[in-house]
Each structure stands twice: as structure tokens, then as C-alpha cells.
């Protein structure tokens, strides 16, 4: 098995530092190993939450109780939501690919604070375990929905405090990662790499990191206040004690709307790397993409109220938030047009990563336009808290961030492991997954418009067909996912040895061996050219 002789240097996978074996992983401050730690742990929690998602779907296959009771169902979608949002997608791309590739792409040997980086992972694990434990411990699974709306969350007798604490801790981990990335990008770019010679994935991480740093503390303190409310009867949000339940929603969404951009920006960054490589062509509108990332981060901070259009916030508040919601769609539009133009006129190699990337565009468009439908005041009144919203965010989170994640893993897999997966199988898996995805979520739009509320354990007869088709889709989707996973796991050790630059990419990570050595670069490269220059000069 050991073909290490092939590598001129010892790869980071074999590197023996102070600690050996498993400890060499658990105590490693190597950003690549930490990236993989995140990958494995996030994948694990993804599978857990996905199984919960599947159970939700099975329950909804027909009206009336099918496999569980209402309380279980309420716990299921809550924990499904908490794990997916706080453990899988918010750290997701940033923590896995960001950790692994950010330093390499900017020509650094590691992040700015490697030990802090490892600490973030431990904090993350602590929070994650707590979140999962909340499902089983004492009072029963929390049943508040991932949004923890008061007063329900301050009265429910389930393990809400567990879940709140978990979310708080996970937020802390997210903040530390953000700080690390910002400083890394500021301080450790290779000589000659000015801001506008930096590849676009680091750029998107930079914009994301700022949101992480500036928005997360708000939800932290909010969750603390809910805990205080439950434990000390302080009552900031309890109307009986003079508090204001809507204030909680303001505070919650001040964080949680920017959080959706924490999820999507790195995803956009990943596909922005993929299009030029597979078209063998510079990215179209580099500057526009950079500016739009920053614009999304900046404007995205001020639209939180669009989750509260029907709560009775003031007329002008609704007006303002709706208006800004539409404005924040523009940078996303700019990106879509630039991606498509990047492919135009290229020499396009339709390999698995590109397949995922174009389906990302497709699904993101559907998710985005339905987002616009939700952002308009009149239509929001009808659609708020219906399964239309559920379909919107699955399209944009799973279809967007999820597919970008799959694109990324198929793109960088050879670099990370030095092996190739089976491309044919990967393409078939993509087909199944893509079909299943649409069959699963598209019907939810339709029944949502017909008035199917979300978080409903049971439903009226007229929604049966839609739910039934949707559940079938879930099963197809899972088959696709398992094909993909099998492919990635099986060929991890058995695949053909990957060349250092299988896709003929031009960014820095493709200029070093696969897998990279412990310190990435023997010598820090001097950057003289813009990041996406495909012309062979010599």
C-alpha cells in the first residue's frame, strides 16, 4: 500500500511530530489536520442530523401519526435544525476547506494562531456533543425549533438550556475561527500577494469571518438572556414580567440572518474556484466578485427583520427591511452572472466538481428567487412559516451550501488525500442526488403556497400528495448520498495515485505536491501575477 516513495517529501498525513498515532491528530496544530478533524466530525454530525431529517420525512409520508408521536416530532425537527445550522453549515465550508486551503492559497505555512485553531475545534466538539446530548438527557429533546422563540422556549420543560448552551459554545468556536482567518489573511499572505492578487475563496472567507466576529456575540448574549430568564426569572422577554417577546426575535435574527451569509459566502467562494479551473479561463469580473462578497456581508447585516414581517413590527420597519432584502439580492445576482460568464468561451471539462458547481447555480437560483418571493411584503404574509420557507432554505442551504461542499470535496479530494475517486461513479451519484433533491423539496413549494404550515406533525388531507412525493424524493436523495460517500471512502486508500495538479488549476494549492507536506511550502513563493492566469507564458 505504501507508495510514499512516490512523494519527494513526507506528506502531512505521514508527518510525525511530537505526538504519534491518533494523538498526532488530536494534538496537531497543523491546519490541514485540523481541517480534516473538522471534516470528519462535521460529516458525522451531518449524517446524524440527516437521519433525523429522514425520520421527519417518513413521519410526514401520510396524514396521521405514522412512526412517532407529536412530542418526538417536535424534538426531531428542533435537533435536526440545531445540528444542521450550528454544527454543520455555519462552520462547514469555512472550517473544513478554509482551514485546509486558506493558508495554502495565500502561500502561508499555517494560520496565524495554530493553537487557537485547535482550541476552536475542541470547543466545537464540546458544543456539538452537548447539542446531541440534549436529545437524550433528562427532560427530553428540546422542542422549541432552532429559533428558540420565547416565551415558549422559556417555559418548555425540555432540555432547552442544554441546547442554548450548546449553541452558545458553538458560537464561541465560530468567533475564534473568524479571528484566526482575519489575522491570517492580513498578516500571512505571501510576499507580492496584494489584496487583489488573492484568490477568491480566501476573499469569501475574509468577508465571512467578519460576519462571524461581529454578529455571533449578539446571539451569544441573547441566549444567555434566555438562560437567565429560565434560571433566574429575570424576564427580559416574558410579557408577564414586562419583557418583550419581539425583542428576542430582533436579537436572534440580528445574528441569524447574517449567519445565513456565513453559510453561503464560503460556498460561493468554492464554486468561484471551480469555474475557472474547469474552463481553463480567468475568472470573469474578479473585482465585481470581491465587491459583491463584501456587499453581501455588509448589507446582509441590516435585513434581519424580514423574518419578522408578520410579528407586528411597525409598518416602516417592515417597509425598510423588505427594501433592504431586495437590495442584498443584487450582489448575489452579480455573482451568478459572473460565474456563467466565466464559463463562456472556455474549454469546458465537465467533470464531477463542475457538475456539482453548475447544479449549485441552478439550485441557488431557485432558492434565491423564492427568497425574493419571501422578501416581498404581500407574499411574505401568505408564505411566512409555511413549507414554502422550508423549501426555500433547503434549496439555498442544502442545494447551495451542501452542493458547494460536495463540489469542493470532489475538487480538492486529490489534493487532500493524494488519491483519485472513481469519476464515473461520482457522476452517477451526482445524478441520483440531484434528482432526489428536487423531488424532495420542490413539492414543498407547492403545498407551501397552498397553505401547509411548517413544523406540523400532522396535516390536512389536501397536502397528502405533495408530502408523499417529497418523502419518495428523500429516499432517492439518500441513495445518492450513500453512493457518493461510498465512492469517497472506498477510494480513499484504493484510488489511483493523484497527480499534483489533476485539473490543471493555477492557484497556489495546485503548485505543491498531493498531499501537501507538513509545512506546505519549502520556500514561500513570490507572487507576481494575478491569481487566475491560464496563459502559458514560457
Amino acid at each position, binding site marked *: 500500500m505504501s507508495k510514499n516513495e512516490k512523494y519527494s517529501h513526507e506528506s502531512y498525513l505521514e508527518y510525525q511530530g511530537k505526538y504519534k498515532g491518533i494523538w498526532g491528530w488530536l494534538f496537531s496544530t497543523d491546519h490541514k489536520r485540523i481541517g480534516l478533524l473538522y471534516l470528519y466530525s462535521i460529516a458525522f454530525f451531518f449524517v446524524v442530523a440527516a437521519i433525523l431529517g429522514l425520520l421527519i420525512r417518513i413521519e410526514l409520508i401520510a396524514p396521521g401519526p405514522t412512526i412517532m408521536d407529536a412530542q418526538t416530532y417536535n424534538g426531531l425537527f428542533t435537533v435536526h435544525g440545531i445540528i444542521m445550522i450550528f454544527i454543520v453549515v455555519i462552520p462547514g465550508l469555512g472550517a473544513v476547506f478554509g482551514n485546509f486551503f486558506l493558508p495554502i492559497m495565500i502561500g*502561508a*505555512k*499555517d*494560520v*496565524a*494562531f*495554530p493553537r*487557537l485553531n485547535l482550541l476552536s475545534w475542541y470547543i466545537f466538539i464540546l458544543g456539538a456533543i452537548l447539542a446531541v446530548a440534549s436529545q437524550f438527557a433528562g427532560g427530553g429533546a428540546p422542542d422549541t425549533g432552532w429559533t428558540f422563540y420565547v416565551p415558549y422556549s422559556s417555559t418548555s420543560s425540555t432540555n432547552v438550556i442544554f441546547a442554548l448552551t450548546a449553541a452558545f459554545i458553538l458560537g464561541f468556536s465560530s*468567533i475564534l475561527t*473568524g*479571528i*484566526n482567518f*482575519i*489575522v*491570517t489573511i*492580513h*498578516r*500571512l*499572505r*505571501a*510576499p507580492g500577494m*496584494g489584496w487583489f492578487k488573492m484568490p477568491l475563496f480566501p476573499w469569501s472567507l475574509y468577508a465571512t469571518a467578519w460576519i462571524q*466576529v*461581529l*454578529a*455571533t*456575540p*449578539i446571539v*451569544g*448574549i*441573547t441566549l*444567555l*438572556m434566555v438562560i*437567565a430568564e429560565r434560571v*433566574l*426569572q*429575570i*424576564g*427580559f422577554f416574558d410579557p408577564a*414580567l*414586562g*419583557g*418583550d417577546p419581539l*425583542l428576542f426575535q*430582533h*436579537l436572534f435574527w440580528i445574528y441569524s440572518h447574517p449567519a445565513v451569509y456565513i453559510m453561503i459566502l464560503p460556498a460561493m467562494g468554492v464554486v468561484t474556484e471551480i469555474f475557472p479551473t474547469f474552463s481553463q479561463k480567468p475568472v470573469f469580473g474578479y473585482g465585481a466578485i470581491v465587491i459583491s462578497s463584501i456587499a453581501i456581508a455588509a448589507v446582509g447585516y441590516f435585513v434581519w427583520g424580514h423574518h419578522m414581517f408578520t410579528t407586528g413590527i411597525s409598518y416602516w420597519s417592515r417597509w425598510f427591511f423588505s427594501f433592504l432584502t431586495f437590495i442584498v439580492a443584487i450582489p448575489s445576482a452579480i455573482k451568478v452572472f459572473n460565474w456563467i460568464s466565466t464559463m463562456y468561451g472556455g474549454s469546458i471539462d465537465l467533470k464531477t466538481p463542475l457538475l456539482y458547481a453548475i447544479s449549485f447555480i441552478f439550485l441557488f437560483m431557485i432558492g434565491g428567487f423564492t427568497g425574493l418571493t419571501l422578501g416581498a411584503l404581500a407574499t411574505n404574509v401568505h408564505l411566512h412559516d409555511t413549507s414554502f420557507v422550508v423549501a426555500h432554505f433547503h434549496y439555498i442551504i442544502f442545494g447551495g451550501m451542501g452542493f458547494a461542499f460536495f463540489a469542493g470535496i470532489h475538487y480538492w479530494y486529490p489534493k487532500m488525500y493524494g488519491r483519485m475517486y472513481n469519476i464515473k461513479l461520482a457522476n452517477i451519484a451526482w445524478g441520483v442526488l440531484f434528482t432526489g433533491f428536487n423531488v424532495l423539496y420542490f413539492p414543498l413549494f407547492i403545498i407551501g403556497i397552498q397553505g401547509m404550515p411548517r413544523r406540523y406533525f400532522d396535516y390536512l388531507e389536501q397536502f397528502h400528495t405533495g408530502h408523499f412525493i417529497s418523502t419518495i424524493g428523500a429516499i432517492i436523495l439518500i441513495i445518492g448520498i450513500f453512493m457518493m460517500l461510498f465512492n469517497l471512502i472506498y477510494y480513499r486508500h484504493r484510488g489511483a495515485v493523484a497527480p499534483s495538479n489533476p485539473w490543471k488549476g493555477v492557484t497556489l494549492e495546485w503548485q505543491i505536491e498531493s498531499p501537501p507536506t507538513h*509545512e506546505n511550502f519549502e520556500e*514561500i513563493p513570490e507572487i507576481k501575477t494575478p491569481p487566475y492566469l491560464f496563459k502559458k507564458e514560457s
Partner: protein
Amino acid sequence: MTQTANHAHPTDNEGGKMGMWIFLFTELFLFGGLFLVYAVFRAKYSDDFHKAAYELDALIGTLNTVILLVSSMTVAMSITAIQKGSKKLAIKLLLTTIFLAIVFMVNKYFEWHHKFDIKVYPGSEVLQNLERGELLFFGLYYMMTGLHALHVIIGMILLVICIFKIKSGHIISNRYLLLENSGLYWHLVDLIWIFLFPLLYLLT
């Protein structure tokens, strides 16, 4: 815009300081959330807030303000001392700071203790029977000063660590990032108090 090419170890002062500042931003927003809540309830119950603020002892508040300001100065001076190479003076100044911090906490203790004595603590019956606005005021008071006190304690721990590092020669006149960052943290504690003080004690 030049780079430290080496393995990103704490020798990158500028980076370390930048990281600290960004961390301070998150702290500001942590309290920012509370300030937001304060603003909303104050707008809603301004009379009750006035009434409740009378209950607080403005004298202790003022005293604690002065203490924190002085301690902020001693920390700043200790950095000057280290830069100039006078280890002894730096340690003395840090000890003064910690002493002041302890005085601050003792004051706080008496303040809270008194409140508990007259049964004004979260969840107490006396509190529940007050006007809603006053109740919220005390809720915010405990939350804000409590969180602030927690920061004071963390700051003290950091400063103690600094003292040891100065003694052991890890912090010296051209390498004092830890001291600088701890100092920044301590100033943040002061900064937040600068706002807490008028909002909680002076609004009578």
C-alpha cells in the same frame, strides 16, 4: 504589507495585537446586545427606570469608576515601564492594578450584598412586586454588572499571569505582546464600565 515568513509564531506582534482587537470587538458586541435591550426598555419604561436607578448607590458607582480609571492608568504605565526595561516598576504597577481590581470587587460585593439583604435579587418576591420597568431595570443591572464583574475577574487572571511572565523573563522590553493584550483587555473592562456607570447609576 510585508509578511512574516516563518511559522506564524507569536513573534508576529502586529498580528497578535490585531487578533486581540478583533476579539475585543466581539466583547463590545456582547455587551452591545445588552445595551440594545437596555435602550429598548428604557424607551418603554423611562419613569420606572428613573425610579429604580435611585435605589442604586451612586456613591459606590462613582467610587468604582474612579478605581477603574486609576487601574487603567497603572496598567498603561506598566507597559511604559516594561518598554523602558524597568521590570520592578512594571510588577509594582501591575500589583497596584490587581489591588484596585480587588477593591472594585469588594465594593461590588457590598453593593450586591446590600441588595440581597433588602431582598432585591433576581426572582425575589420584593422584585416581582415592583413595577415592570423597575423589575427589568434590576434584571439588566444584575446581568450587566454581573457579566462585567466576570470580565474583571478574567482580566485579573490575565494580569497575574503577566506578573509571573515578567518575573520569569518571558515578557521583556522588546517582547511584551501578552502584557499589551492583557492591558487592552483591562482597558476594555474600563471602557464598558464608562458606559454602564451613567446608564445604571446616574439616571436618577
